[in-house]
């Protein structure tokens, strides 16, 4: 497989995952803030902006965080590189660049989501029914995932796309944990919202019951082997995809992924009330980012550089 194609597929995986993750977080935050007194609603949105590291940029453009300004900034604003719209545009740009190696079903599903934004249909829907608007995006994202699973041959291209998808997801879960830990470490409701934002409340409750402690939630999010959004599960996926792709034999990224995976797999999960948790999550985030960079270096170890993306932090 061409290195440029591998890179493009990796980023399609990342961008589609990013769009999907942010949309789910928005949906939950929207729900949570409605149950808060009006004076406390803005804080909910601020926490979400913190997860994405873009509170500062938000302040440059908007005075207060309301459903309307958040939707404009985080969903529709094509100039905000972290918005859902930007992720979709980037996914589409990448798929156009690799359109000769992807199934038409995948191209079509991404184009359809892009049209939802470009036509203004989504903006209108968010104004009349915010929840329905998020739901539209989420449904499209699931269609795209379905196209990946159902129409792509399990060759290296698919594996690179999955690598991107799970690295992105691992990073998102880490950030969500970190922000919740810093603003509401012992707030049951806040952790339940986190579980919902990764479609994990039901799975967690079945496994651990409705009375489980907060530390149990953190352990679930970090190292449950079976839950598809846990950091360990995501990194295991990355490791197994990388273990079967054909490479030059001198790649560094499999080693980097293995290292960060071991970091979580064999550690004790510290209590939310200690600083050790913050340190663990920070080490994971650095490890994930290093693995992503190593993957890029592996692709271009024979020179050349086809970078279409910035590797800056989200």
């Amino acid at each position, binding site marked *: *497989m061409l290195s440029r194609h*591998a890179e493009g597929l990796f980023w399609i995986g990342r961008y589609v995952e990013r769009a999907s993750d942010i949309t789910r977080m928005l949906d939950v935050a929207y729900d949570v803030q409605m149950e808060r007194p009006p004076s406390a609603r803005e804080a909910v949105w601020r926490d979400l902006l913190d997860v994405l590291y873009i509170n500062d940029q938000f302040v440059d453009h908007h005075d207060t965080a309301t459903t309307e300004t958040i939707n404009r900034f985080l969903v529709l604003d094509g100039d905000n590189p972290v918005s859902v719209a930007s992720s979709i545009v980037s996914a589409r740009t990448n798929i*156009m660049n690799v*359109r*000769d*190696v992807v199934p038409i079903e995948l191209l079509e599903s991404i184009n359809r989501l892009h049209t939802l934004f470009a036509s203004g249909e989504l903006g209108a829907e968010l104004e009349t029914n915010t929840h329905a608007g998020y739901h539209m995006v989420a449904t499209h994202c699931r269609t795209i995932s379905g196209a990946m699973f159902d129409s792509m041959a399990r060759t290296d291209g698919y594996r690179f796309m999955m690598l991107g998808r799970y690295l992105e997801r691992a990073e998102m879960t880490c950030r969500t944990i970190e922000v919740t830990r810093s603003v509401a470490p012992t707030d049951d409701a806040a952790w339940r919202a986190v579980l919902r934002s990764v479609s994990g409340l039901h799975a967690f409750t079945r496994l651990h019951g409705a009375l489980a402690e907060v530390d149990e939630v953190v352990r679930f999010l970090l190292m449950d082997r079976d839950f598809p959004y846990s950091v360990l599960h995501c990194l295991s996926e990355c490791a197994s995809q990388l273990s079967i*792709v054909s490479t030059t034999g001198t790649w560094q990224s499999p080693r980097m992924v293995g290292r960060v995976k071991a970091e979580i797999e064999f550690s004790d999960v510290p209590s939310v009330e200690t600083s050790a948790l913050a340190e663990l999550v920070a080490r994971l985030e650095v490890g994930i980012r290093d693995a992503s960079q190593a993957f890029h270096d592996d692709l271009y170890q*024979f020179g050349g*550089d*086809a970078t279409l993306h910035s590797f800056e932090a989200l």
Partner: protein
Amino acid sequence: MSLLTEYRPDGTFGEMIDAGQVRDHYRLLADRLAQFTAEDIRQRMQLTESTFRNLGITFAVYGSEGGVDRTWPIDLIPRIISASDWAIIESGLIQRTRALNAFLEDIYVGEHAIVQDGVIPEWLIKSSDGFKRQAFGINVRSGARCVVAGIDIVRDGNGVYRVLEDNLRVPSGISYVIENRAAMKRAFPDLLDTYAVRSVDDYGSMLLRALKWQAPYGPVDPTVVVLTPGVYNSAYFEHAFLARRMGVELVEGRDLVVDDHVVYLRTTRGPQRVDVIYRRIDDDFLDPAAFDRHSALGIPGLLSAIRAGNVAVANPIGNGVADDKAVYTYVPAMIEYYLGEQPILPNAQTFVMWDDDQRSWAFERMDELVFKPVAEAGGKGIVIGRTASDEDLEEVRALVETDPRNYIAQEIIELSTHPTFTGDNLAPRHIDLRPFVVSGETIEVVPGGLTRVAMREGSLIVNSSQGGGSKDTWVLEPA
């Protein structure tokens, strides 16, 4: 009321209806159209448009606002070519391509016999932009130099098919031929059913066979790639389409590297050798070391790899000399010289501006002529005397006088017209035809080709970059 009731041809050759009579091979279509309302056609047009958009069947228009992609414009009323007409066109195209291949061989690896024998002046060849010294001595297997040719054909007022120009460098449009057919199958399955139409679907294998034929040292299974300038090129959709259809990699210059006169792909498993490059970039951008050193698209060292016989590019370097519009005037002479045959398809009446007599004659009747620069494509730089403003005419006259070698004038051909959906009814619009000819071990022609249509009433400009549309083109099976 039927869509065709009020159809009035405008005095030029009518492809479907002439002197109030529907031509025989269009009769079934006319019967079916009689059952449709304008609303039926509108609905199917919308369906087609949204399918094209979702599938990304688009082309970029340079210089338009934001460089946006437009969905490919198709008119759903098909153009039908009878089996007997097609037999003439096909044999004419094969004949012409054989002569053009022979000419290019003669120029780049031969003795310049056509010059020695006084058929074409040497200075005309050497002064052509498309003439590349770098191509001297590069062998092409069995002399199949026009690997892919797009030869534009129009039909004049008497219904005679004439060649308007040859495109022998990187002709595009074939992907739209195939997608137009697929769109027709979705929009009007019942219409296609009524005819026995020849398929256009196996172009991918036709092209791959011809490209593998070019592998310079005959490896068992040569690696073929398609080289594109990238996603921002107006024909990028087609480049990706062809790579998909052939099952080969679509590469950009940065994906290739030359080491010790051998071309390699940069892959996740390390370098992989390439044998044949179907390039969709112009000669001047192929290799910054040999052509334009400022080009960022090319592959440094590619020319050395070609000259070393380690890789073949298709179309080969230097084909532009044969589709130069001033050299075009000599193609009928080439056919007689190399093949000893009479041309089956005549040229359009053409005047070369470097000839003093022809130039002054042309300047006296500018309103009857169309002036064209010899090396442009896509309708660029063309001035139609009849509709041009006085300033435009003055300007082109000055251009011709400064650089007569690089201009020709042609009689305005009143292109044939075809019923075309305007949104409310069917009206006559001018059309042309770009068939595709593939040279490999043999020369093959895709049945039909791209019919382009000037969507504006009376307009003769069919180029898609200038608002032209397209039609699915049906070649009928012989009865």
